């Protein structure tokens, strides 16, 4: 009697498909998977094929070196074997690949440890002790992440350079105290690791602090009752609970440092310290550009490895991080020497976060560099063309239509990118959290994180190639938006997912039950509740985008973006202008951050995944 009711197979499949697609979260997962794979798989594929074939210059080189007859585009394993396996000479492979690889690994390891220690200790001090100036510390501590990493490197050089190192410029430390730090302290792996460590320490602070803040204080109190001392509690209770955050920080910092270029160039190369990213750049500019793609592949693979490791560790330990969030009264540890410790931290933070800003401001005001008796506002306020001994500079920054135009261009691009990325992150977060545990959702969240692993430079060059195929994109604002959106998606999707995960399913279901359509649920329920977190997802891409250079340099002409203009003045050594523009970028970021924070409660740290 069931016969009449049975439907044919295609009808059933169709009905099931309709049922599947009527769920917006499924549509989101599917469509983002399609968009992202085409935007990421294609670039990756092109990196792979470039690594596996020879370009015109490469083929000339290989033919001449090895007596071959390769033509442009021929498949070859030579890029690999020459770079990694000593096909030309062991010296070549060691110099270009193995040594930089080893250096990168060491630098990244040290940076992760430094970031972890600095960020973790600050996080612990803020959440668990009665340290003073908490507000100052916690708000200023994220500055080093907001500022471009090379500004820190610059500050490092300005402070520690001395008459015994390099060309013997007298840095601030020497001129104040007469102390000359050794050469390894100024250039090489040490400053690289420290600067990168400090740059990413806010990461550790945010991730670890988030967990400590939400962790049920009862867990620690229970240990106190059992008469465990503070150190034992930290070791046996606190640390294991924040372990996933620690590991996650280490892996993120590790892979970020791996791909960083500017800092090793500033304070690494002068000390003969080369890492994979600097070698990638050298290879890219060399006559063996094919090998630069091999290098890119290796970097991507390391990143994937890190990500997989992260996934594996976090996945297993996830249960640890489920926290009740009911830790109202934490009894703060009373620090011995509180005043001294607080003061030291405040001072160190000043140098890490505030000093660079002040020094940019001062340098932009000095007619003669470093001579504070020649202060002038003309580089900011002059309505006349500034001539002088230098190259044509143009009008003062605030009246210079080129600079203001470029700044506006950067703000516009960053705003559009952050809108696209933030919204995408919100949607992806929704799709992933609704389909928690499904294979497609896991795939999506991994794919969305992927662009993080491709070095900016490679990304830019890939999309230059893409744009010559898709003519309508070439040189357009849209292309910049697309490239930047994909590049900055990882963090937005991460913060989107973590914000969504914090919402219990019931919240949305309560609205489903009363028949609220999807867009109403999104705009009236989900978004407003986690407003701060989601808006943070918009903030982070904005910050990253406005200070980005290497991603865009191939895709746009100088003058359209503030960073490309910055390198113009830098090139000409118009110190006042380049410092002024630096200050301008940092100020824009800080003002935007502050305004958004005051208006909505969103902040950078929420964007990274803190709470």
């Amino acid at each position, binding site marked *: 009697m069931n016969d009449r009711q049975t439907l044919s197979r295609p009808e059933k499949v169709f009905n099931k498909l309709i049922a599947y697609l009527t769920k917006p979260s499924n549509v989101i997962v599917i469509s983002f998977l399609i968009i992202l794979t085409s935007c990421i798989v294609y670039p990756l594929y092109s990196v792979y094929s470039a690594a596996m074939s020879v370009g015109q210059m490469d083929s000339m080189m290989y033919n001449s070196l090895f007596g071959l007859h390769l033509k442009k585009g021929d498949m070859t394993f030579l890029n690999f074997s020459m770079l990694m396996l000593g096909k030309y000479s062991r010296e070549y492979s060691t110099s270009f690949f193995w040594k930089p690889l080893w250096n990168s690994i060491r630098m990244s390891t040290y940076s992760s440890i430094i970031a972890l220690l600095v960020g973790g200790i600050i996080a612990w001090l803020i959440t668990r002790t009665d340290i003073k100036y908490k507000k100052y510390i916690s708000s200023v501590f994220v500055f080093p992440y907001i500022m471009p990493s090379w500004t820190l490197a610059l500050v490092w050089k300005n402070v520690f350079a001395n008459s015994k190192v390099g060309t013997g410029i007298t840095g601030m430390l020497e001129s104040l105290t007469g102390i000359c730090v050794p050469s390894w302290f100024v250039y090489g792996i040490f400053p690289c690791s420290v600067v990168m460590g400090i740059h990413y320490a806010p990461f550790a602070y945010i991730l670890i602090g988030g967990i400590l803040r939400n962790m049920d204080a009862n867990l620690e109190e229970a240990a106190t009752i059992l008469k465990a001392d503070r150190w034992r509690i930290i070791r046996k209770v606190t640390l294991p609970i924040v372990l996933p955050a620690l590991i996650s920080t280490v892996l993120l910092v590790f892979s970020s440092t791996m791909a960083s270029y500017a800092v090793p160039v500033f304070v690494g190369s002068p000390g003969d310290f080369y890492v994979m990213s600097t070698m990638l750049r050298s290879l890219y500019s060399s006559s063996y550009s094919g090998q630069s793609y091999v290098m890119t592949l290796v970097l991507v693979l390391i990143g994937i490895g890190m990500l997989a490791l992260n996934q594996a560790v976090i996945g297993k330990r996830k249960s640890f991080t489920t926290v009740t969030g009911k830790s109202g009264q934490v009894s703060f540890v009373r620090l011995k020497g509180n005043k001294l410790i607080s003061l030291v931290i405040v001072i160190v933070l000043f140098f890490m976060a505030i000093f660079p800003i002040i020094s940019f401001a001062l340098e932009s005001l000095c007619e003669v560099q470093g001579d504070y008796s020649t202060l002038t506002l003309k580089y900011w306020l002059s309505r006349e063309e500034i001539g002088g001994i230098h190259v044509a500079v143009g009008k003062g920054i605030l009246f210079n239509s080129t600079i203001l135009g470029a700044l506006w261009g950067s703000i516009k691009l960053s705003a559009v990118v952050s809108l696209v990325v933030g919204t995408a992150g919100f949607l992806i977060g929704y799709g992933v959290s609704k389909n928690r545990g499904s294979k497609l959702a896991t795939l999506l969240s991994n794919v969305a994180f992927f662009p993080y692993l491709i070095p900016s430079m490679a990304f830019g060059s890939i999309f230059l190639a893409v744009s010559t195929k*898709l003519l309508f994109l070439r040189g357009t604002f849209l292309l910049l938006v697309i490239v930047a959106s994909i590049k900055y998606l990882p963090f937005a999707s991460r913060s989107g997912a973590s914000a969504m995960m914090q919402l219990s399913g019931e919240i949305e279901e309560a609205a489903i039950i009363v028949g609220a359509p999807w867009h109403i649920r999104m705009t009236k329920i989900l978004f407003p509740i986690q407003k701060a977190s989601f808006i943070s997802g918009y903030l982070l891409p904005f910050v990253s985008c406005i200070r980005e250079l290497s991603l865009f340099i191939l895709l746009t002409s*100088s003058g359209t973006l503030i960073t490309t203009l910055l390198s113009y003045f830098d090139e000409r*050594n118009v110190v006042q202008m380049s410092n002024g523009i630096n200050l301008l970028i940092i100020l824009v970021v800080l003002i935007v951050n502050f305004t958004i924070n005051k208006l909505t409660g969103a902040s950078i740290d929420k964007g990274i995944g803190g709470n």
Partner: protein
Amino acid sequence: MKKIIAVILVASVMLCVFAGGSKEEATVQESPVQIAIKEAESLGWDELLAKAKAEIGDKELVIYGTTSRVQENSFTEKTGIKIKTEQPDDTQIYEKMQAEVGNGIYGADVFVTTDSFNLVNLAFANGWAENYVPAAYSDKLAQGDKNPLVALYYGRLFIYNNGGKMNNYIKNIWQVTEPEFKGIEMKSPLLEKCSMNFLITLTSPEWQSKLADAYKSYYGKEWKSDGSFANISYEWIYKFIQNCSFINKDSTIAKDLAAGAKGSTGFFVFSKFRSVDYSNLSVAALEGVEGFGGMLYPIYSVISSNAKYPYAACLYINYLLSEDGFMNIFGKDMGAYSSNTSVAISEKAKSVGDQDLAYWLDKCVLEDSAYISSVYAQAYTKIAAWCAGK
């Protein structure tokens, strides 16, 4: 996995469609750009200006230049033709040529670039760029500067901080290989093709013998191979690289050096003097260095094979070669030398002791593009490995 493959397939099909549409028919006939160039060769300034203006109207002439100076807009002041410039580096400019001209896409009209090797072996060999020599300047250019056309030369020199009193610090080029000169600041030859070309040129027999003479004069004995280097030039190059400290920008080097301690040495573009306080800086070559005092590298100017405004492009090159053009764009300060032998350096340059091109040709190593091409792969790879491995 299947899904990913499917996406790749779809994407590549799409790309093929786009790519297919842009293929130009192969011709043996002359292109419009070649015709225009041929015609422009014999035109005087005024005729060419008229043609160029008629052609371009109020549109912009697009110039890609590896040197930032192309952004100076005196050309517009003189001709009324607007320009738009981009400043890719010496890798990116060829990448852009390939991406644009190579795909039949209009990007730029004029390329101002360094590195004869890539210019000849990539740009000319692939037909991305055309050479143009205005007849009016033909007899004012050295024969070797005509193909590819050299617009001007830059000098990259050994410069040291004299601490206010020291002079003649570098007397022999072998000095810079000695331990006391450790830390010479220089932009890595891996990132600066003309520097690499300079080092490769040094390995030529001509420079081997010059280096051998300097060696004998400095050490008081003949150079003898101990087997570790193929010839004397490689020994010098190796030791020099070991002594270098790579900085990513010439302007940073100039700044570091100007503010640095007595005796610190750098190898950077002379023209950077214009943006630092050079009161404590001395140019070794001007005081006399046995061997050579630095390198001289050509800035070439060629026309894009798919230039939209070939006449205006020709006009621009005419302008670069003219006294006016050189002075306005490059010659105001020290360190740049017109290939036009009738153009002298500026008074300002003279005031800091700068000299004319002929002087520098004698004191410096000049990129020898024929020799470079003959040994490029071997020499490049060897030197590159040293640079990377120090």
